[in-house]
């Protein structure tokens, strides 16, 4: 009898302690998320930071030429047997709609990339040769020259394995890069998502913005070759 009562009391106390600890950990994790893009905000004059429903920050700023840049963070736990990923998504919005096709590439596709634009494009295309498997799709309106230019750009960009997606569309461009990887022990033991980052590096955001700018120019040039290296 005493053993049963003791065991019940121990289980109740353990559950209460675990519940309290889980709530405080969750609140601390949410609070930690809010400052992730504070340093990157210095890249843009008059940058604004708002917060997504999952408490990750959204940074909106403008380039010197007035184009809007939107920097977001996405936690991705959708692929089984892979550590959670924190993606940095940079969207560059053009001042006016450009006369160019929508064309994009996604590295190592699994089908579970809910944040991807490439999966929504209708036409499947032969991707450039890279070390990683690549899914390349478009809206089907591009000329052969445009497709070749975009493929050449993608081949250079995706030589970096931390790049996940690159998209060109009439309204803007988008780049998705790996910002952090979840802690292994927390994920394997209880499928928890913990990222050991307190701030997203300014260099990483700068690099993604440069790539978005390069993508924006690649189909605008006529004969002059856009140096793809400037994206790197």
């Amino acid at each position, binding site marked *: 009898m005493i053993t049963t009562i003791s065991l019940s009391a121990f289980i109740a106390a353990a559950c209460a302690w675990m519940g309290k600890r889980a709530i405080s950990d969750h609140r601390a994790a949410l609070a930690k998320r809010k400052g992730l893009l504070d340093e990157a905000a210095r890249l843009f004059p008059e940058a604004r930071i708002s917060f997504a*429903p999952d408490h990750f920050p959204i940074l909106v700023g403008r380039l010197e030429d007035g184009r809007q840049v939107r920097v977001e963070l996405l936690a991705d736990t959708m692929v089984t047997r892979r550590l959670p990923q924190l993606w940095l998504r940079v969207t560059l919005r053009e001042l006016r709609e450009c006369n160019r096709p929508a064309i994009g590439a996604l590295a190592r596709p699994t*089908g*579970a990339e*809910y944040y991807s634009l490439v999966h929504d494009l209708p036409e499947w295309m032969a991707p450039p040769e890279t070390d990683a*498997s690549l899914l390349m799709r478009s809206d089907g309106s591009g000329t052969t020259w445009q497709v070749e230019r975009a493929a050449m750009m993608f081949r250079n960009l995706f030589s970096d394995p931390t790049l996940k997606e690159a998209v060109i569309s009439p309204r803007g461009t988008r780049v998705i890069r790996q910002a952090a990887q979840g802690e292994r022990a927390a994920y394997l033991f209880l499928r928890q998502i913990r990222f050991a980052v307190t701030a997203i590096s300014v260099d990483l955001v700068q690099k993604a913005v440069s790539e978005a700018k390069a993508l924006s120019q690649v189909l605008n040039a006529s004969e002059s070759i856009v140096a793809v290296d400037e994206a790197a």
Partner: protein
Amino acid sequence: MRSPARSLPYGTMAGIMTLLIAATMTWYVCSGLLPWEYLGQAGTPLFDAARVTGSAGLMVLLFVGTMFSTLASANGCINDASRAWFSMGRDRYLPSWFGAVHPVYRTPYRSIVFLVPIALIFALGAPLDQVVTFSILSGLLGYTFMTFNMVMFRRKWPLDTIKRGYVHPLHPLPVIVLLTLCAAAYFAVFLGYGTQLSAMMCFYIVASLWFHFRRYRFVRRGDQFTMPWPKPVGY
């Protein structure tokens, strides 16, 4: 994976050896403590064996071990299974309704909400040995299909047509061994659990027919095939 040629055989052999040693030790100890006729019918054979020893420490250890294994199963049922349904929903193998992501928690919440009651029914409403048998038979079916897949894969993309990280040695000998082992397991299962085996086969045949005649028209074919490989032989 840094070196598939090394990691694949190493991981496979390490997994098999761990399982064989742990399972053999468990069976040896338990059948030494209790008659096998009892163990075969018991709902909690390990715990019963621990009780026979009269050791409170061993019972607590088994309790803690049971909690960990329950957590592992819950992880599988809630997290991994829901993500499999999420992916199948996005590829239209299942209704796309399952492919939604929760805006706050970034989880496949519809798949989770749908699958948790099913997991609870299996956990609480069905006899444990039946559930385990169904689960193991489903795995066995997966291994059986693996043999046909390996043969078809090698025929469609023969050696030197694609860059391989790992080449299956002595092909098709491993396939023949695996198929023989699967056949032996089916026969053994039939002797003890013939009804469950028939029920499982009926379930999967009906599910396959539904998929072939109804669901497959919605599937976005080719979306999953993204490897930069040449066309397979015969296409």
